[in-house]
Each structure stands twice: as structure tokens, then as C-alpha cells.
């Protein structure tokens, strides 16, 4: 529900390990809301979202959240922190050790000591991607992942996404562009 309006009804889908799901729809159709529901921020008016893993099932929003890597419209970057500080924060926040490798993999190694306020939009997105890498979460929820990226950046994301699925991760992305992963697609 958005306000008093029903956004979508009768949705049912399943995504298994190694799969990617592209959620498509016009602006305002509720793609972001669906992602937020899966992340556990928003409660569905009716229905259930269940995450099944080797350890068991989790239908509780907060539990589910522990398995989710989120890449929303915003980057979650603090202008006053340097790239390295920001990434270390993300790593430690998720209980991981600081990893210099991640910066290399997204092509931001040279910007490590640069405060985030000086990053371009594309660079910010890459840093947010690096966050996904260091947090090592199995399920990635991406909201318009290709937005604000140049061709090289888009290639990078596609590559990282392919690797993630290749390792058994799940991706659910709201997107206008094709993910190019032989994925399923859900139209709202």
C-alpha cells in the first residue's frame, strides 16, 4: 500500500541461489516499494516473504535483513569520510575485516584517501558497490543499479553481478535495462 492505494496484488515469485530477478515497471509502479518489502523495511499488507537457507527459514523482517545487501537510490556515503574510511566503516559494521582489495575491484584504489565529497556520481556508485562486496551478503537488492554509471561502470556492475550469481548469490534488481544474466523478469 502506498498511502491508501494498493500498489500490486497477487504477486508470487521464487528466486533460487544463483538466479537473478529483474523487476520491471513504469516509474511509480512500486519497484522500490517491493524491494523495500523484501529488505524488511516495509511490511506487506498481505502475504509473506520467506528466505530459506541452509540454516533454516526466516520470515521475520529483521532476521531476513541480515542476509541482504542493499543498494538503493542513494549511496549511503558521508562526504566527510575518505573512501578508505567509508569502506572500512562498512566492513567493520558488517563484522568483516577491512579489505583493500575491494577498492581495487571497483577501480577506486587511487581515490582511497579522497574525501567522499569529491567523488563523481559514478565513483560514488562504485564505492557503494564495494560495500556490497565487503559485506558478503547472499542476497543483493539493487534499485536501478545501472543508473549514473558510464559504460565502463555498467560493465563493472554486470561483471560483479555475474560473479555474485556464479558463487550462488541471489540478485533482485529493479531496472529498466536488461541485466544480461539470463535472468527471470517480473513486470509490475
Amino acid at each position: 500500500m502506498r498511502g491508501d492505494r494498493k500498489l500490486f496484488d497477487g504477486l508470487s515469485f521464487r528466486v533460487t541461489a544463483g538466479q537473478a530477478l529483474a523487476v520491471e515497471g513504469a516509474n511509480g509502479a512500486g519497484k522500490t516499494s517491493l524491494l523495500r518489502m523484501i529488505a524488511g523495511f516495509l511490511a506487506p499488507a498481505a502475504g509473506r516473504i520467506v528466505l530459506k537457507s541452509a540454516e533454516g527459514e526466516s520470515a521475520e523482517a529483521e532476521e531476513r535483513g541480515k542476509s541482504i545487501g542493499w543498494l538503493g537510490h542513494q549511496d549511503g556515503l558521508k562526504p566527510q569520510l575518505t573512501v578508505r574510511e567509508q569502506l572500512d566503516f562498512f566492513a567493520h559494521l558488517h563484522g568483516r575485516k577491512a579489505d583493500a582489495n575491494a577498492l581495487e575491484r571497483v577501480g577506486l584504489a587511487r581515490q582511497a584517501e579522497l574525501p567522499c565529497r569529491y567523488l563523481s556520481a559514478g565513483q560514488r556508485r562504485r564505492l557503494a558497490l564495494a560495500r556490497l562486496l565487503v559485506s558478503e551478503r547472499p542476497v543483493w537488492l539493487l534499485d536501478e543499479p545501472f543508473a549514473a554509471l558510464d559504460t565502463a561502470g555498467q560493465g563493472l556492475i554486470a561483471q560483479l553481478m555475474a560473479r555474485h550469481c556464479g558463487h550462488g548469490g541471489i540478485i533482485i534488481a529493479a531496472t529498466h535495462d536488461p541485466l544480461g544474466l539470463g535472468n527471470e523478469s517480473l513486470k509490475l
Partner: protein
Amino acid sequence: MSPAFLNPFGTLLLRDLKLAARSGGGAALALSFFALVATLVPLGVGADLKLLARVAGGILWVAAVLSALLSLDRLFQGDFEDGSLEVIALSPLALEMTALAKIMAHWLSTGLPLTLLSPVLALLFNLDVAPTVTLFLSLLIGTPAVSAVGAIGASLTLSLKRGGLILPLIILPLLAPAVIFGAGAVRLVLDGMGSGSALGLLAAFSFGAVLLSPFAAAASVRLNLGG
């Protein structure tokens, strides 16, 4: 600058402290405001030294509370606006612990500096040593409550553009006990009595506030994330 490994709570605390230090001098704003109010009051009520000593506890307590308020509205709002709050909410750190970390960061960057400045300002009010010590102790014990109760207000108003106006209205009545016990302790000492009971009540209030407010703050954050 940051150690090789830090637990989630510590890393959030450290980050918030860094951010406070790097945005406009951190404690500087609160300290300046505190000193300014302490300067304005004698201008307002006259320089009768006996009178000033009498009201020092109350004035400085109220000034400290107001100064601490200044940075409260951004406590959660900054993270909410740039998308950091979603990331933090999904991390292994429980939202209640997130709130506690932010309360601690706020106190360390606001309440504690104010407490440390208070003896200097007590001088302006002609306060003797014993009541100054009491004032210092009362602020030390009571300012955590201000950060804690403030966090509740901050989390309830985090989605408001001009929430800064409602925040004081919501939390000042709830902070009345802190002002009463804190300033009351100073007055007791001025009258030659012991401040133990007052400080004890203040400590109980602070303890309860710090213990319970993370729950209310976390509930409010969840509420706002669901928007």
C-alpha cells in the same frame, strides 16, 4: 586512523564521533552557545553577585540542556537522508544498539564538553568551589539523560524538514526531572546541605533514560524506514 578490526558498535560510535568532529568543529557550536547564554543572563538580571550565585545552578543547567539540543535534530536525520540508515539497519547491529551508539556519540561530543566547560562558567556566576563541584558532577551524571531523551525526539522527528522546532517542544518537558534534580543539587549545597539524594535521583533518572530510550528510538527509526 581506524584500527584493523572494530566491532560494529564501536565502528558506528567512532564514525559518528569523526563526523561530529569534521562537521563545523563538533563541540565548538554547543560550547559557544553555552558560554553565550551564560554571558547573556547576567546582562539580563543584573550583576548582583549574590543573586547570580543563587541562580547559577539553574541557569547553567538550562543553558546546558539547550546547547545539547542544538545538534540533536541531525542525530538520525543525516543518515536517513543519505541512505546510510538503511545500510545500518540491515547490518548485524541491532537498531537499539545503533541508537545507543548514537546517544553515546552525542554525549561524548556535546554533553561531556559542556560539563567540562561548566566550572569556568560557574566562575562568571560567582559560584563557590563546593557548589561548582556539585554542578560539575550533576552535569556529568545528567547530560547522558539529555542525549538519551533527545534521541527519542530526534528519531520521532527525523523525517521532518523543520523538525528542529518540534524537537525541543517534545523533549523539554520530559527533561524537567533532570533540570530539577541537577540544579536542585547545587542549591542544596548552597544552602549547606548534602547533595547526595539529589544526585542519586539524577543518576537513577539518567540510568533509566539511557537504558530505555534506545527502545523507543529504535521503534521510531523502524517506523520511518517503512515510509
